[in-house]
């Protein structure tokens, strides 16, 4: 279906495209290993976050927490805020986003364009700190509605009802699903769907590994694990640093023509790792991974220009995913 009554109706239903040049392809033993990209940048505001944002708002409207004239508050370093702001604008809510001060300028501008008000949280500590600040503000404004993507089940539900079924319909032979680990909503929701619909699909998490500034002041006793996270729904989890993420995001553009954001490079790196394992084991595999967003919002990070060494240096201390 390509005609919709409004922009909000057009969320989801994204294309799944093959990567003929990055996939290992047909092996001498007859096994075939293919990699598929789920283009979530084709959503209305250009990221996968349109799915959970819309679902969280709809659920809150349904259960009565969100009423006309309400103010929405959310800790976000960008995409979720942009998605929420779009939906809030169309539905008539005010929105305040708490974001770390070391996120890219494009994301701030986009948030402001869609009408969000921004509260900055300290760079050190990254999203953990944004969550802490948002919780504090929520305490001071009991009438504001914090949808709280890290603990809101509607986040995972959007993927359980949308992303998962779409993948199975487009790729019935799917063997692996690889996505980024942030709120964990994508992985939790898609996994819940496949655990039921096709339990042998392996669920693989790619987690960004930042520079030392981001972890520097973290106390090991005050870490953060999203409330949504259920370890039993994941089969393996990889930590991917900025160097591999940049290298892969450039390969994706160079070889397949897909211009993606840096976190997608980290996810592709984990997907290629699974592909290499399948080749080594002589098994066929159909590996689907998520293209979270396009590269536009990250041009100012310097990730796409110069050598990989230079890009790695520039990303140090930034929340690149």
């Amino acid at each position, binding site marked *: 279906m390509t005609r919709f009554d409004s922009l909000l109706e057009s969320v989801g239903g994204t294309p799944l495209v093959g990567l003929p040049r990055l996939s290992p392809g047909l092996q001498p033993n007859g096994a075939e290993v293919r990699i598929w990209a789920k283009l979530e940048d084709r959503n209305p505001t250009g990221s996968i976050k349109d799915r959970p944002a819309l679902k969280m708002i709809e659920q809150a409207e349904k259960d009565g927490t969100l009423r006309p004239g309400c103010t929405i508050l959310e800790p976000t370093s960008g995409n979720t805020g942009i998605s929420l702001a779009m939906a809030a604008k169309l539905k008539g809510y005010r929105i305040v986003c708490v974001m770390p001060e070391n996120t890219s300028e494009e994301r701030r501008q986009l948030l402001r364009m869609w009408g969000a008000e921004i509260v900055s949280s300290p760079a050190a500590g990254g999203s953990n700190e944004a969550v802490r600040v948002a919780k504090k503000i929520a305490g001071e404004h009991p009438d504001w509605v914090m949808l709280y993507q890290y603990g809101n089940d509607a986040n995972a539900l959007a993927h359980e009802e949308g992303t998962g079924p779409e993948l199975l319909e487009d790729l019935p032979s799917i063997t692996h699903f690889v996505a980024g680990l*942030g*709120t964990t909503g994508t992985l939790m929701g898609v996994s819940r769907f496949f655990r039921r619909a096709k339990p042998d699909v392996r669920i693989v998490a790619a987690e960004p590994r*930042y520079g*030392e500034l981001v972890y520097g002041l*973290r*106390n*090991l006793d005050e*870490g953060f694990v999203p409330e949504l996270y259920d*370890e039993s729904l994941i*089969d393996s989890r990889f930590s991917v640093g900025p160097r591999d993420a940049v290298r892969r995001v450039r390969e994706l553009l160079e070889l397949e023509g897909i211009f993606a954001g840096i976190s997608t490079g980290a996810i592709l790196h984990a997907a290629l790792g699974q592909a290499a394992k399948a080749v080594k084991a002589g098994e066929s595999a159909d590996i689907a991974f998520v293209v979270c967003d396009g590269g536009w919002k990250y041009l100012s990070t310097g990730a796409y220009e110069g050598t990989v060494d230079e890009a790695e240096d520039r990303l140090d201390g930034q929340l690149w995913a």
Partner: protein
Amino acid sequence: MAIEVRIPTILRTYTDGAKAVDGSGDTLQALIDDLEGNHPGIKERLVESGDLRRFVNVYINDEDVRFMGGLDAELSDGDQVVVLPAVAGGAR
């Protein structure tokens, strides 16, 4: 058997400020015991009642050990181990 262990800033008080130290062991458990010998106090920051602490993530060659057997995860010569505090995701 040499295994490089990368230490987060918050734990470098135990390693005289070193960002990475060498250790040895066939399993993560053995490696942590070996580290404790050279850097007393570090084990208690990583392990609690026989399991990894909740907000400590340990990776062997970039893979999270919680999906590789936890403290029983096997190690080979030349492996790289990274210790990191758990943080929330980025662009969310």
